């Protein structure tokens, strides 16, 4: 369930008393409700589900995770093909 994708906040407006953002998903842009991530600022990434930002995306953590995966690969290479099918 719960298809959610990361997008970058392009702009923030208050519409009809609701905090809304225009969010960019790699060229595709959609209006998104920012009420649950009210302090997200322009340029930040948020996780969007059914038109709502439900969480900030922690860019630092993302980069760290990817770096971890990369290290894992190097590690595997170092220690050879142990256990591969």
């Amino acid at each position, binding site marked *: 369930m719960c298809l959610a*994708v990361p997008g970058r906040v392009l702009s923030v407006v208050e519409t009809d008393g609701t905090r809304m953002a225009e969010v960019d998903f790699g060229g595709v842009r959609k209006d998104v409700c920012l009420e649950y991530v009210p302090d997200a600022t322009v340029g930040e990434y948020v996780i969007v589900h059914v*038109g709502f930002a439900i969480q900030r995306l922690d860019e630092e953590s993302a980069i760290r*995770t990817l770096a971890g995966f990369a290290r894992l690969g190097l590690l595997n290479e170092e220690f050879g093909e142990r256990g591969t099918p």
Partner: protein
Amino acid sequence: MKYLDEFSDPDLAAGLLEQIHASVTRPWALMEVCGGQTHSIIRHGIDQLLPDGIEMIHGPGCPVCVTPLETIDRALAIAAQPDVIFCSFGDMLRVPGSGRDLFTVRSEGGDVRVVYSPLDAVRLARENPDREVVFFGIGFETTAPANAMTVRQARRLGLRNFSLLVSHVLVPPAIAAIMEAPRCRVQAFLAAGHVCSVMGTGEYPPLAAKYRVPIVVTGFEPLDILEGVRQAVGQLEAGRHEVRNAYPRAVRDEGNPAAMAMLRDVFEVTDRTWRGIGMIPGSGWRLAERYREFDAEHRFAVGDVRTAESPLCRSGEVLQGLLKPDECAAFGTRCTPRNPLGATMVSSEGACAAYYAYRRLS
């Protein structure tokens, strides 16, 4: 899409797979809780790449599959009313009620509209003051804040023609119910990452401790799934049963406090029947008494719906990982994605539908 495509990188995936293969010494049965994860696994063929001994059991985390038949039938009855604009996420349109679905209602003239966001339904209510607008508010904890916002907005805008047909389900009670099932084979859980984006991880340590299962909060991209599997298998091989967050870029332990405050205000916990599984105590949310004026069940006299699930369908056992879809007698014969008997054959992440597409190859 940035922070999405990177997590499908084939080279990094190969590294993770190698690690998993390297660490596995015996068979393990893992359940991915969330239908979105099931979708990703099938979509990318991840199960084919895992060691033979690792079995992925598809969990009940597909709201399309588990929304109770009574609720679907109520939705159909409301949607068929002439003054109603019935709004729903697209997934729900093909879910069979007792004999028909929302597509059928629409084809008979019911005004059924697919919306992208629950706020679109509120907008429709403002634009159509002479119509009753009903939003079909289904989903897990992830979707609940969005649905909750509709009634808050409706009240703020003074809308008297908007209501919500609510059927929310909650993940932690379902995990408990699965572990309590007599024939349960699940040895570790990949918890649903986006549920935790909203709710945090606080509900899981008691479950991990009580049932002695590792629980790894897991994302949805291929690398996320592999990392969840890697951490779960790591714990299993090491004999541990902890809660770990393998999706830290989107999940904080404390969840989303603003959303959780809203949920406490708008909803209250209730017992909930899961389609195919049955009643799980405290496993759902309904509208709180103070939002009763926006509750479609109260506004429309459709409480007394008589439901009739196909007697052939064994989706409950499938949803709990007790039965593989192709062990159901109706599978592939009476029951196909074209003509589903159970909800698990409808949604593309329903276990039966996923099996149907996959099995044809082997």
